[in-house]
Structure formats: structure tokens, C-alpha cells
């Protein structure tokens, strides 16, 4: 890898309380991905998007059909990212409504082949499979390249005992972050196609048939 190699990581954190354990987990994941990218000789550019301040903009976008400026900036950042960490609290056995709304509004092809790390927080470990039965199908629909390791943090996991255990939260964060860093390093960084800068020529739109 050349020393000039860079990758952009966008972390989307959909916690609703302030401070939130969702943001706590998001920051730990971001730091771990940062470390693994640097170890691979890649300069990371990391941006964290909190969904909570965008909540009203999300509703406005759904109803008005366009994104207010702050939301548009966030959606553009996700679209342009080389990799994404998506972190949601688990509500009623699934991702939160705000989290879904955000990903409902990203461009249809924004996630095509994009490496994504799935992570979630919840009160108890009984919610941990929500990553597999709720988040993973959503990102499969978006055609994302979801990392095999999802990271679930229950309240109990923030206690020292769980951290120290083999397979505990710190270990899972490290394993998932390494998977994401490897996938991001392996995929060439590419600017999103701009159909306005480079339109499909009309002769390709109209096959001459007569």
C-alpha cells in the first residue's frame, strides 16, 4: 500500500438518549477500525453522524420529498463513504424507527458492494440476534457487503467481567473492525457516479428500431 492511500469511514449512530450507549459503541468501533486501517498503511478519514439531530429532517424528507440541508450533507457523506459502521438501539425486537428512516432515504444504489459493519445496543443479551434477523436483511436488500461479525452490546457487556472474557465485547469489536478494515482496504476507493456530470448519451437511450 502506498503511504498516500486513504479511505473514508462514516459511522451512523442512531441512539436517542444523550449520552447514549449506542454512541459509546459507535466510538469504540470507529477507534478499532481506525487502528486496523492504520496498521494496513491506510490513512482513515472518519466522520460520525448522529441520527437524533436529524429526526425532524427525516420526517420532512419523507413528506416533502427532498432533504433539508443538514440531512442532505449526511446522506451525501454516507453515499461517498468507502465503509460504513451502522449502529442502532434495538426497539421492539428490531432496529429503531429513526434508524430505518435514515436508511430508507439513502440513494438506492449508495450501498452497492459497500463494506458495512452492523452493530446494535440493547438492555439485555436476549436482543442480540436482532442484528441477524433484522439488520442483516435490510443491508442485504441495499446490496451492502455486510461483515460476518455483528457487534451487539447489552448493558451488562459494559461491565468489566464481560470485557475481560474471551469472546467478550472488546474482542468482538476488534474482530468486526478488522473485518471491515480488510474489506475497505481491498476495495478501491471510487467516487460515486454523477449522472449529471456524465449523462447516458441519447443514442443509448433510443435504440433505432425502424
Amino acid at each position, binding site marked *: 500500500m502506498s503511504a498516500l492511500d486513504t479511505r473514508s469511514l462514516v459511522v451512523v449512530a442512531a441512539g436517542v438518549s444523550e449520552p447514549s450507549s449506542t454512541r459509546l459503541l459507535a466510538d469504540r468501533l470507529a477507534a478499532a477500525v481506525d487502528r486496523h486501517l492504520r496498521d494496513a498503511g491506510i490513512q482513515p478519514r472518519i466522520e460520525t453522524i448522529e441520527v437524533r439531530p436529524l429526526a*425532524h429532517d427525516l*420526517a*420532512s424528507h419523507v*413528506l*416533502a*420529498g*427532498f432533504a*433539508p*440541508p443538514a440531512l442532505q450533507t449526511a446522506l451525501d457523506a454516507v453515499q461517498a463513504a468507502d465503509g460504513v459502521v451502522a449502529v442502532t438501539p434495538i426497539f421492539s425486537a428490531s432496529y429503531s424507527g429513526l434508524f430505518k428512516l435514515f436508511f430508507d432515504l439513502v440513494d438506492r444504489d449508495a450501498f452497492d458492494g459497500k463494506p458495512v459493519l452492523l452493530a446494535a445496543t440493547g438492555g439485555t443479551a436476549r436482543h442480540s440476534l436482532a442484528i441477524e434477523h433484522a439488520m442483516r436483511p435490510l443491508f442485504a436488500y441495499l446490496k451492502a457487503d455486510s461483515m460476518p461479525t455483528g457487534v451487539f452490546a447489552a448493558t451488562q457487556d459494559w461491565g468489566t467481567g464481560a470485557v475481560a472474557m474471551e469472546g467478550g465485547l472488546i474482542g468482538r469489536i476488534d474482530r468486526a473492525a478488522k473485518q471491515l478494515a480488510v474489506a475497505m482496504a481491498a476495495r478501491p476507493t471510487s467516487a460515486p457516479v454523477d*449522472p*449529471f456530470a456524465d*449523462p*447516458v*448519451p*441519447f*443514442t443509448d*437511450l*433510443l435504440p433505432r*428500431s*425502424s
Partner: protein
Amino acid sequence: MADKKDGLGPSTGRNDMQFGVFTVGDVTRDPVSGETVSEETRIQTMVAVALKAEEVGLDVFATGEHHNVPFVPSSPTTMLGYIAAKTERLQLSTATTLITTNDPVKIAEDYAMLQHLAGGRVDLMMGRGNMGPVYPWFGQDIRNAVPLAVENYDLLRRLWREDVVDWQGTFRTPLNGFTATPRPLDGVPPFVWHGSIRTPEIAEQAAYYGDGFFHNNIFWPKEHVQRMVELYRRRFEHYGHGPANTAIVGLGGHVFMRKNSQDAIREFRPYFDHAPVYGGSMSLEDYMEMTPMTIGSPQQVIDRTLGFREFVGDYQRQLFIADHAGLPLPIVLEQMEILADEVLPVLRREFEARRAPGVPSDPPLHPRVLAARGEAPATMAEPAGAHA
């Protein structure tokens, strides 16, 4: 017409920029009175708006086309033909004609017929329609919206330009030895605009043929408008129709006026808050900041509208949405008077004063329309390549 060019820049041999109104024909409950008008009343309201447009000196009336409630205008040429008989000068147009779900053969014949009845005062704006079920109701698939718009329009052009057409395509039965009737008035097909909010293929299509491009410019931030018009202009030049700044651009606009801007906001707010498109999405104030909508004094409307040319360049047609969201007819007609009396004289003068040399002031109209206005006919653009 208002002031002529007063020697500002070289004469293009054309009229001044065109101003008018367009209607979508929604039947919406008036949130202030609580009343919902009948279909008959709504249709007569649309006609009243058109007649008012001619009376106060607006240039254009354009009707929408819809095939789903709560919209009434399913048959635009029936309405425009009726209006043509009651007017002398008004240019009749559409906003938009559904090029996806209508048979292009029927469009060719309906609008050529209208040309003959209206003395050439006809142009059209092509649109795809955004109501999903309308496609299957008319035997089409919304996933083919862009290919339908492309194929159908190409056939429509040929039907107006070639006396005998042999044609085969994907979406309709082939034609052998077909002549669309009547032929376009004086052999000059109606001028066509292509309308689209954010589909680059439609800007490309308009540019390829050297047709006009219209952005509705309401309900959206100006960035959407800007990038579509920029693409259209760049490709217009690419296809050899002339410099990018001479491409033919039209914009919509969304205004409500009172002498005191706070009065305008207070009176319009219930209509904004309950409107079908944006009702409940955000505050009127935020919406005005994020989109070109202007609710305020006539001077604010003048300033904002003149500002449009800063993000799309000099353009040729400005239409304002007139009757919608349940606004009662007397208020709509009063708004049109304010527009004609207090806003348009300034806009007509200032747009021409700012217009770059060599940029046409208006779209290419039918020669008879120009002759009636004492102007020499302009040459209509021809498409790129051999497919003239």
C-alpha cells in the same frame, strides 16, 4: 403586451419573455371554509383562470393531465379547445402531457387538431406522470417510464414531421403507411418542452432534439433545478443546436402576495399546512427558505423571481401555479391581478434588461402567432444527427 425591448441588446426578432399560469386541477377541500367544490365547479374554475389570464395580459395558460382522483383534468385538448374558442391571444399549453401512458398517435392528432382550432396558439410539455397505478390502468409498466418517454416521443415527432410513417418499436403496435391527421398547422409542429424534476435522461432528451426544457421549480430546492438546467444547456450545445445560453428554458413558480408580507403569510398558512404535496412536512417559513416558494409582498416576489436567472441563466418562460390547495376562485383571480398589475411589468422590463445579447427572449412560437404579434418567425431547432 408590456414594454418592448427599448433597444436593449440586438433584436432577436421575437417577442418578450413569456409569463403565465399553470394548473394541476386538484379538487382539494378549502381548509378555511371547509368546502369542497364539485367536479363541475372545479373544471369551470380552471376555465375561469384561463380567461382571466387573457384578460389581465398573461401570455400562457397550461393545464395538467391526470387520470386519478382528486384531479379533474383528464382531457386537456377538450378543455384547451374550449378555451381557444373564448380567447384571442392566449398561448395554450400543458403541464404536463403524459408521454408515457398516452398513445403518441393520439397525442399527435389531438394537438394538431387543437393547433388548427386555436390558430397555432399551442405548445406542449411532456411529462412522465408520477402516480404508479396510472401506468397499469393504461396498459403500461412504470418501470419502463423513461424508455416509454423516449420511444413514444420519438414517434410523436415523426408523426408531425413525416407525412407517411412506417414505424416499429417496443411499446405499441407497428405502423405501416400511416398518416396522422390533421397535419400540423402550416406544416409547423407545436413547440415541445420536456419537464422533469431530477431525471437526467429527460434533460438529455430535450437537449438532443433541441426542444425546450421546463423545471417545475416548486416543491424542490433550487439545487435540483440548477443541475438539471445546467445539464440540459451543456448537452444542447453538445448536440449542435447553439450556445448553451441560447437553449430554451422554462420555470415554474409558487407565489402568494399581499401588500404586507405578514398578511400574505397569515392568509396562506392554512393552505400551506393542509396542501396535498407539502402539508405537514415542515413550517411555511422553512419551506420558503429551502424552495423557491415566495409568500410575501409583490416586491419580494419580484426580487425572488429575478433571482431565478442567477441559477438557471436567462430563460424564456415563467409559469406560476395558480389555483391549487383549495384556494377559492376569487382569491386566485385577485392574485392573478396583482401578478399582472404589480409584478409582471417589472419582471418583463428587468429580465430583458439583464438578458445577454443573442439569447432569445421567448420560445419559438408558431409563425401565425408571431405574425399576429407583428414579429418575424424564428427558426425552430432541429435535432442532432440525421434524424431530423
